[in-house]
């Protein structure tokens, strides 16, 4: 399950993940709600994959999500109820204040992260904007988060490479692949260190 704010590239990210699953030979279904995405509202997308014939519904049941990918902290908080108890959250450490929210009602970054930690057994945090800055294009932040997620999925590098190439805007394939690798390697290193 991918959640974020309109304009963050959540649907592009879920498209990369779904296409990678297709290249890997899985049956795959993807759902997205983009009614208000362009106006800064919440965006939600689900990707479900398995062997052929096992994916029926395009959305999971609440409490059954294996990986919650949060591109923004408040949207991640909002979606925590979807995650399995033993599920993993991949969370981009960015907080976008809702435009009309009264000051006191909005948790700050540390409070939001603390609340997520309380709920989630396994948290992979990503500094998407920082990594994207490093590859030289802030707009690849969503791809770094996809990379971080990829490290947790049984999908080969080849499939990811094909998916990134066909989904991102033409001419940005290479820089997006760099962003993907940064995100992925970061997760892999962390996992290796924690073992």
């Amino acid at each position, binding site marked *: 399950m991918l959640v974020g*704010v*309109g304009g963050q590239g959540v649907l592009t990210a879920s498209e990369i993940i*779904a*296409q990678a699953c*297709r290249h890997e030979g899985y*049956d*795959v*279904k*993807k*759902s*997205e*709600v*983009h*009614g*208000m995405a*362009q*106006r*800064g*509202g*919440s965006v939600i997308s689900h990707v479900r994959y398995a062997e052929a014939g096992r994916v*029926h*519904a*395009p*959305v*999971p*049941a*609440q*409490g*059954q999500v294996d990986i919650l990918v949060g591109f923004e902290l*408040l*949207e991640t*908080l*909002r979606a*925590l*109820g979807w995650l399995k108890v033993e599920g993993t959250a991949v969370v981009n450490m960015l907080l976008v204040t*809702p*435009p*009309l*929210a*009264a000051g006191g*009602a*909005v948790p700050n970054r540390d409070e939001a992260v603390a609340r997520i930690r309380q709920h989630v057994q396994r948290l992979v945090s990503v500094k998407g904007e920082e990594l994207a800055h490093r590859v030289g294009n802030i707009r690849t932040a969503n791809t770094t988060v996809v990379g971080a997620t990829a490290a947790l999925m049984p999908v080969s590098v080849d499939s990811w490479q094909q998916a990134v190439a066909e989904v991102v805007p033409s001419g940005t394939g290479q820089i997006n692949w760099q962003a993907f690798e940064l995100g992925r390697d970061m997760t892999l290193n962390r996992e290796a260190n924690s073992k």
Partner: protein
Amino acid sequence: MAQLLLSGNEAIARGACQAGVGFAAGYPGTPSSEILQTLSALTQVPIEWAPNEKTALEAAVGAALAGARALATMKHVGLNVAADPLFTAVYTGVEGGLVIVTADDPGLHSSQNEQDNRHYAFAAKAPMLEPADSQEGLEFTQRAFELSEQFDIPVLLRTTTRISHSKALVQPGPIAPVQPGREPPENRAKYVMIPANARVRHRDLLDRLASLTEISDSGEFNRIEPGDASLGIIASGVAYQYAREAAPQASFLKIGMPFPFPAELVREFAGSVDRLVVFEELDRVLEAQVRALGLDCEAKPDEMLVGELSPQAAAQVIHGVRPPEAPAPDVPPRPPIMCAGCPHRPVFYILKKLKCYVTGDIGCYTLSTLPPLETLQTCLCMGAGVGQAHGISQVYDGDRPIVAVIGDSTFIHSGITGLVNMAYNQSTATVVILDNRTTAMTGGQNHPATGRNLRGEPAPELDLAALCRAVGVKRVRVVDSYDLTQLEEVLWRNVFSSMPKHA
């Protein structure tokens, strides 16, 4: 051919091409808009945005009369607008195949209501196909054209947001050559619906439906999937997918053609299972038909008449397991807002300042009803704000100016007749056309006043101010909404002056 990952809408467009579609028209509306946009990239035949759904359907009826396979697309409420031609087009029938896509929006992701358009099939006596995933979206569209020609009748294809906007693997087939148009027939008994002819055609319609019932009972679109006989589930659309996950071992009667209703198949299925459950989204359409056959069944509780179903709703209805109440997360909401720099904002700022009573309409500017502007007082259906303002001003003679706001696309869709009414009946209300030169709400589609057609090519440009003068509006002012001083001046001078007390 390799499999593709397609949304329901993309699959429908693909299916139309595989059927050799020769003409398509529609009006944008979530979740239907991507069908024509996808189609325009797949084929060179005319693919058009029409001013509204009625004009779109009428144009498609004409193309089908000239022998082409024609497609009309719209969201669920769009079919209300196009209902008039639909109800009689089933009498006349077609020459080339005619398929009408109606995309429902359970859960109101982006709509003003959640009407269930399966009722239209029953009310208009129009056969309806209902795909449950993208593959069926493609196949059913292709078959819908064939059925339309074989049974001489327009065919409705109904999707919901979860079908239109979910992607799944699809096996594409070859794109068929376009069936070219030809001279339309002179067959007045069939195509001129004066009472004497229409009476005959109504009877003929019943015969055509009787033949279609054989298709409905045949197992092609409505199929029995035998499983454990202790539990039988009747379901359609995405509800079928949820039920499959909740009860993988059960027997299923999957409904892909709700009308004509497959009574024989339902009887057979009901007789083969111990427990019969109907699981459907929105209204109790299938359930009512099952019960009308004298069959007993279980179904969802009333609270599930509202909103979308889900895998957990399926588990609740089928197994009686209530999902644990998830505590509402304590997170500030993130309501959509007008974009930074949106030209609608200043207008509402001034209307609020002038204490106008603002009737409204549907589009991005509807967001002006939310904080911080909180100006818009009504939103009913497209074009309604103009009529409402007129009606109010005819009976209210207090101090507040009555102002209707309406977007450019919405004005062309259904505001023009309202304005004619105001000019004719000498209204004292004011109409403000919020002309941002696009259909922003649904993703920025072109319309007759943008100077571009669906493909983005240059097109004749409707002059809105000239149109308003032509229908008899005496004072037409054009003002740049970014020029706040000028905007306030123009609104202040005009919203009061047509009121009796200020005249």
